[in-house]
C-alpha cells in the first residue's frame, strides 16, 4: 500500500484473549486436571485379565436372553406393565400438583425470602435422594407394593418439576409481569395472567418428560419392592427366566420410545 502513513502503527496480529487471564492459574488448572484424571484412572484397578474373563460370561448372559419370551408369563407381564403405567401417571399428576406451590415459592421474583428458602430446601431435599432411596423408605413405611412406588415417584417428581418451574418463572419476562401488576391485579391474578402464560408451554413439555422418567423409574423402584414392572423384572431375574426379562426390557424400551416421540410432539404443539 502506498498510503500507509498511519496504518503501520496498528498491530497486524490479533488473538482472542484467553478465558482465564492469569497464565499461571490457567496452566495450573490444565496440568492439575490432567494429573487428577490420570491418578483417578490409576485407582480404578483396571485389570485386563478380569475383563477377558468377563466377556464370555457376558456372552452367555446375553445368549440366555434370546429369544425373548413374551408368551410364558404373559399374564404377570401385562399386569406389571399396566401397574407401572398407572403408577407413572398417578405419581406424575400428584407430583406436579405438589410441585406447583413449591415451585412458585421457590421463585425469587415471586416469593419473600423465607418462603423462598423453605421451598428451595424442599427441592434440595427431594433432589438429594434418588428415587431408589425414596422407594426404600416408602417400602419401609407403607410395605411392599405399588403404593410405595407411587409415593417414591411423586416425591422424586417434586425435586425435578418444582426446580425447573421455579427457574422458568425466574427467567420469565419482568416487563410483562410488571404490566399486569400495574393494573391493580391481586397476587393470584397476577400469576395467572402474567407468569402462567409464559411458563405453560415448557411446563407441559416437562410434565410429559417427567411421565417418561417416572415410567422408567417405576422399573427401578419395583426392584426394591415398589411394585410395577420392576417387581416383575426382579422376579424373572431371580427365577433365571432371562428370556422373560428380555421381553420385559424390550417392552420398556418400546414404551419409552413412544413417550419420547409423544413428548417432542407435544412440545412443538404447545409452543
Amino acid at each position, binding site marked *: 500500500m502506498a498510503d500507509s502513513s498511519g496504518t503501520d502503527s496498528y498491530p497486524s496480529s490479533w488473538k482472542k484473549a484467553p478465558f482465564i487471564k492469569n497464565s499461571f492459574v490457567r496452566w495450573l488448572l490444565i496440568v492439575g486436571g490432567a494429573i487428577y484424571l490420570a491418578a483417578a484412572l490409576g485407582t480404578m484397578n483396571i485389570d485386563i485379565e478380569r475383563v477377558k474373563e468377563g466377556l464370555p460370561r457376558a456372552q452367555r448372559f446375553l445368549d440366555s436372553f434370546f429369544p425373548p419370551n413374551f408368551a410364558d408369563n404373559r399374564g404377570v407381564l401385562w399386569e406389571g406393565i399396566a401397574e407401572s403405567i398407572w403408577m407413572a401417571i398417578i405419581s406424575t399428576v400428584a407430583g406436579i400438583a405438589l410441585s406447583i406451590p413449591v415451585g412458585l415459592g421457590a421463585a425469587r421474583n415471586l416469593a419473600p425470602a423465607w418462603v423462598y428458602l423453605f421451598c428451595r430446601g424442599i427441592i434440595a431435599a427431594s433432589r438429594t435422594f434418588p428415587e431408589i432411596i425414596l422407594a426404600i423408605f416408602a417400602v419401609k413405611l407403607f410395605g411392599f407394593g405399588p403404593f410405595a412406588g407411587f409415593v417414591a415417584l411423586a416425591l422424586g417428581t417434586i425435586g425435578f418439576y418444582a426446580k425447573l418451574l421455579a427457574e422458568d418463572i425466574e427467567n420469565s419476562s419482568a*416487563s410483562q409481569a410488571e404490566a399486569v401488576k400495574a393494573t*391493580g*391485579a*391481586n397476587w393470584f391474578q397476577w400469576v395467572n*395472567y402474567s407468569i402462567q402464560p409464559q411458563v405453560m408451554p415448557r411446563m407441559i413439555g416437562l410434565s410429559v418428560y417427567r411421565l417418561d422418567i417416572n415410567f422408567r423409574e417405576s422399573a427401578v423402584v419395583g426392584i426394591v419392592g415398589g411394585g410395577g414392572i420392576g417387581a416383575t423384572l426382579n422376579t424373572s431375574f431371580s427365577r433365571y427366566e432371562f428370556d422373560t426379562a428380555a421381553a420385559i426390557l424390550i417392552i420398556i424400551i418400546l414404551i419409552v420410545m413412544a413417550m419420547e416421540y409423544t413428548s417432542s410432539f407435544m412440545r412443538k404443539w404447545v409452543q
Partner: protein
Amino acid sequence: MLQLSELTKRYNTGELALKGVSLEIPKGQVLALIGPSGAGKSTLIRCINRLVQPTSGSVVLKELELTKLSSSALRRARRRMGMIFQEYALVERLTVMENVLSGRLGYVGFWRSYFRKFPSADIQEAYRLLDRVGLKHMADKRADELSGGQRQRVGICRALIQNPDLLLVDEPTASLDPKTSRQIMRLIQELCSERGLTAIINIHDVFLAQMFSQRVVGLELGSVVYDGKPEGLTPEVLTRIYGEEDWSATIKSTDEDDDEEEDF
C-alpha cells in the same frame, strides 16, 4: 390533580435516581418528561404507581397519598392509574382480548378472571376500545402475532379499560418506526383529550415531545432542570438537559404541519 413533593429514590445499589422532585400536574394536562437515559424518568413514573417504592417524599393523586398505602389499598389506587409501557409489555401468549381485559383485573374477583368470565360491560368496553384503535378484528389473535404499532395500541386499550384518572406512559415509541411513533403519540394525545385524562409521557424524542404535549419537564440526573412550554425548549435548555450538541435540527420549526393518514 397529581402532586409530587420532594420525591426521592435511592436504589439498594446506592444510586440516587431521583433527588427531591416536586411537580404539580393539573387535570387534563399532557406532560412530556424528557431527559437522557438514566436521568430517572422511568423511576419517576414507577414511583407514582409504586412499581418502584420511593425512598422519601409524597405522591398525592386526587387527595390520596399513595406512598404509604397498604397493599390492598395500593391495588385499588393502581386501578386509577393506567400504564403504557416501553416495548408494549403485552403478555405475548395471551390473546389481544385477554390482554385488554387484564386491565380490569383490579375490578373482578380471582375466579371470574381465571375463567375469563368478565362482566358484559367490560367486554363491550374492550370491543369498543379495540374498535377505536382499529383492532377489533384482531381480538382473538395472540399478542405476539401483532406488529409493533398494533401491540402498542393494545397496550393503550389495556390502560384505558381501567378507566383511569391518570395515564403513566413509559417510552411508548421506543422500538417503533418514526411514522408509527407519531401515530401512537397522536392516538394517546387524542384519547387524553377525549377523556380529559392527565398523562405523564416519558419520551426520548424531543421532537415528539414538543409536538404532542402541553408541557415539558426536563430531567437530568434525578433533578428537574426545565419545566415549561414545549416552545421554550431552546438549544440552551436542551444543552442543560442532555449536554453539549448541535440542537438546531432537533427543535420543532415554528408551525410544522403534519397530516399523515392513520393507516391500520
